[in-house]
């Protein structure tokens, strides 16, 4: 099946840059995990990060909402700009950054509470108390995650009682509920079966109308299917991840500029 061509090369000039990485390096104590990555993240587009195992894709993704801060000894050099401002700058509020840049994880992690409470968790955290508004938010988010029809009569049921694919969509609904600007997804379908995977992939296509999406995937076909731009990361000799090539997905997969990219895409390594 031919991948949907969702944009034309000439569009890049008209696209807004939502986030930008400038010479980003990520260190765990003395070990450099990510080396000097510079790439743009275009607004309302899906950017995929692909590469062999262990090259640092997840580390790179987590650097975009400062989740690496949670790891002792982790530090960054370079910049990550969100709407032009460096999120690692002095005086930046990590809490606010994470509100604007949400994350969906590899293994669905619903909270041990009802479906309703899961989705309402974020808005409640921000101070929303009015039940009518919360009800609207929960419904709106669940609809956007294509889960409303399944759970509308079971909002009080535990979030952990859903199937794997539904749990992941619940996590997506939860992330959407606080109206982030960017959604980061770390291999969101690798723990799901093929049908659930397809559902999530369709969902991502609809989500990009309202959000900017960055997705890490080890599945090249998935990247080719759903993303507009792809960044190919690889590991160099000192086990640091570096950016081999970045470009529109169609171009990167049909006409890669780097030999390493071509080797990876054609399966010669990885």
């Amino acid at each position, binding site marked *: 099946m031919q991948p949907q061509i969702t944009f034309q090369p000439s569009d890049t000039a008209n696209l807004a840059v939502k986030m930008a990485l400038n010479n980003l390096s990520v260190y765990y104590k003395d070990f450099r995990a990510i080396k000097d990555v510079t790439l743009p993240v275009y607004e309302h587009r899906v950017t995929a990060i692909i590469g062999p195992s262990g090259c640092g894709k997840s580390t790179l993704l987590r650097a975009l909402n400062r989740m690496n801060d949670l790891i002792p000894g982790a530090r960054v050099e370079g910049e990550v700009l969100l709407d032009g401002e460096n999120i690692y700058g002095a005086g930046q*509020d990590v*809490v*606010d950054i994470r509100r604007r840049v949400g994350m969906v994880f590899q293994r669905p992690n619903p909270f041990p509470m009802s479906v309703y409470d899961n989705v309402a968790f974020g*808005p409640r955290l*921000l*101070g*929303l108390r*009015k039940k009518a*508004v919360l009800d*609207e*938010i929960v419904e*709106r988010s669940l609809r956007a995650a294509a889960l409303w029809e399944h759970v509308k009569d079971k909002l009080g049921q535990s979030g952990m009682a859903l199937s794997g694919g539904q749990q992941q969509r619940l996590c997506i609904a939860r992330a959407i*509920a*606080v*109206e982030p600007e960017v959604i980061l997804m770390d291999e969101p379908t690798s723990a799901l079966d093929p049908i659930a995977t397809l559902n999530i992939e369709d969902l991502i296509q609809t989500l990009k109308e309202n959000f900017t999406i960055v997705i890490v995937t080890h599945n090249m076909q998935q990247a080719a299917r759903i993303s507009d731009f792809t960044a190919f990361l690889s590991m160099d000799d000192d086990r640091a991840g570096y950016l081999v090539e970045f470009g529109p997905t169609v171009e990167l997969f049909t006409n890669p500029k780097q030999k390493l990219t071509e080797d990876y895409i054609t399966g010669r390594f990885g």
Partner: protein
Amino acid sequence: MNESIYTHIDLARNYRNRKITNILMLSLTGVTVVLAIIPLVWITVYVILKGGKYINLDLFTRLPAPMGMSGGGVLHAIEGTFVMVTLASLIAIPLALLAAFYLLARPSTTLAHVLRFSTDMLAGIPSIVIGLFGYAVIVVTQKHFSAFAGGIVLAIIMLPVVLRSAEEMLKLVPGEMREGALALGSPEWLAALKVVLPAAAEGIITGIMLGIARAVGETAPLLFTALGNDNYEIGRIIRDGIHYHQSLGQILGNIFGQPADALPLTLWKYAQQPYQERIQQAWAVAFVLMALALGLNIIARVWLAYRRRKLYG
């Protein structure tokens, strides 16, 4: 509703409140940590100050002096504790480990449930009641108090402690590791011994240390089982045994068959006596007990850290 949730929220005020709450809670946790440390520090310092000055070589090498006279030591208690805790460990540790392995291999059988339940119940029985049990079953039958009875009773007390922590540690080992060994054709006991046990070893050793520390510190159950014995000295027993050409069995019988003293038991007795020197010795024993407990803990932790660094770099 199509408008953003942020039209219903005062974000700035929400952030301010959350920041204040955060600072408040962090300070509270800091304060409670200090409060929790105070008792430990206070007790340790107090015991060191009060007991430290009475520590001398005599304390560790001599038997008690006759009532009212000065000098002497608590050698009898040290040896008594050593003998009884060793006996207790030799009984309780293998039993606990084997039972824990059973719980690992057959976790859902009726026997397993009964085992877990009884262990939890046993852990909750006051140690003095266990001592009374030992009295009724062993002392009355043998018609004398003995280190043996004391050791058995301590074994009963140690058993649930070691079993519980051993089971928890074994459960922490990923099931895949055991399955890997079984898939290679290994019998269950070999997989348990060579694969699961080394993986859980650190935690199990910690549990054993906890059990030993508990046994060393028990006083009440020894009241009616070991009773106390100012003349308990293993060296003399062995020398006499050799001198009178006694068999090994007889010598062992003499070691375990006599009433014996223990450190906490001695402390309890001395603390109540009217002689100033006894009271000082009681403080010294308290110091020794504290040093033992802390020492065991520290050794366990240092060893664990060393092992962890070696294994995981």
